[in-house]
């Protein structure tokens, strides 16, 4: 068993773009288990926070302290983007790619990729250029590609924002299963229904600050801040 990269301790980390503070300062502890949903209105900094945790944004000041080295931590986490980024390759080659990067032998990588193609019901599209798949198929493929490397921590940025109901249902089922298998999941959404269906705990972010971190049941029933209250009630937050 590989040692865990979690808990992650974030201290006073900020994201700035052209001098404007987008997120933070953030202080957080990410525990090794759980399914956290980051909620908040559009433009509140959900994506930037997720990208900061994954290392796609450099923190301006503050620190991210993984359990172990940052290099090791980066090898054991995956990120799924809101708009799936597909390599201009076949579906199966998209899953194989990160495995080859991790020096997994070709035949073994192919075996793992085939399993995942089966799991997401894309057998028929195995050898189709991934860019010709539908939006839902692309996102399923992106999640399979993210999971094929057996990450301890999976980030998802609004993975179903552009998808229809059936694709959303399939992806939520896959995420539930992944969570049960012990993978730590941190995901953003501004869809309250999705938050209620998936979250174990909720982080509520508003104007770049985390206003609330609480158990999901408690958050949806009795939010602590008036902003969260308004958000759940469907008011427009600016």
């Amino acid at each position, binding site marked *: 068993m590989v040692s865990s990269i979690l808990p992650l301790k974030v201290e006073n980390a900020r994201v700035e773009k052209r001098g404007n503070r987008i997120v933070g300062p953030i202080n957080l502890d990410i525990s090794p288990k759980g399914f956290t949903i980051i909620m908040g209105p559009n433009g509140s900094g959900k994506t930037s926070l997720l990208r900061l945790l*994954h290392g*796609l944004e450099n923190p301006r000041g503050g620190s991210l302290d993984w359990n172990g080295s940052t290099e090791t931590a*980066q*090898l054991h986490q*995956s*990120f799924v*983007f809101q708009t799936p*980024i597909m*390599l*201009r*390759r076949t579906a199966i080659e998209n899953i194989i*790619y*990160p495995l080859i*990067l991790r020096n997994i032998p070709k035949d073994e990588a192919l075996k793992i990729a085939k399993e995942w193609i089966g799991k997401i019901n894309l057998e028929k599209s195995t050898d*189709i*250029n991934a860019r*010709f798949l539908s939006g839902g198929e692309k996102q399923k493929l992106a999640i399979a590609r993210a999971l094929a490397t057996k990450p301890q921590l999976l980030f998802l940025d609004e993975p179903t924002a552009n998808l229809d109901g059936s694709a959303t249902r399939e992806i939520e089922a896959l995420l539930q299963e992944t969570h049960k298998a012990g993978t730590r999941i941190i995901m953003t959404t501004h869809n309250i229904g999705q938050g209620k269906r998936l979250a174990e705990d909720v982080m509520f972010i508003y104007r770049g600050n985390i206003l609330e971190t609480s158990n999901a049941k408690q958050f949806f029933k009795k939010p602590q801040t008036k902003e969260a209250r308004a958000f759940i009630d469907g008011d427009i937050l600016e």
Partner: protein
Amino acid sequence: MSDIVEGMLAAFRLIFSLDADLFEIILLSLQVTLTAVIIASLIGMPLGAWLAVNRFRFRRITIAILNALMGLPPVVVGLIVYIMLSRSGPFGVLNLLFTPTAMVIAQVIIITPLIASISHQAIRDLWAEYHDLLISLNTTKWQRMLTLIKDARRSLLTASLAGFGRAIGEVGAIMIVGGNIDHLTRVLTTAIALETGKGEFAFALALGFILIALAILVNLAIHSISKTERASNW
């Protein structure tokens, strides 16, 4: 107008006469140009990829210079290569002046900036698309370049073909460094220049049509081998 028709007829007659000298010229044209395209691609494509994924201090000016070099005047390149390779020049001992190798060297210098620049543009666009994913997957700079070159291969083919187009029709530089020596360094373009100078317009035109046909054939052949322009691939 009748000159042109006559030229076309002469071209057909020439081809079907299976003239050995003619095929020697065609073959040398192809050999020199394809060698130059391959070498220039091997230099230009990695250079284009490198410029796309790296951020360094003089990047903008490097790219500007590269783009400017696309318009390098072949005659000047020929002259410089001539001076370099001439007996009294720094590479005189290699005895390369008036050989096909000298022609390849001149063409590589002419088309490498073109191939590098077109490659850079294609790879830069793909890099913008792949950027977040490749960063997220912890790729090294080297892996990024390889991935981008592999996945942009169809756009890179266009870069190579543009280089081929420029090189196969080029006359100024190879005339100077090759010398248009019969059976040694005579190619289609230098032969056309020679025949035109002699007043043999029909023959010159015939060679011209063969040259154009050759360029089209090579393009078609490469497209069919690489299966571009088909929906399932693109």
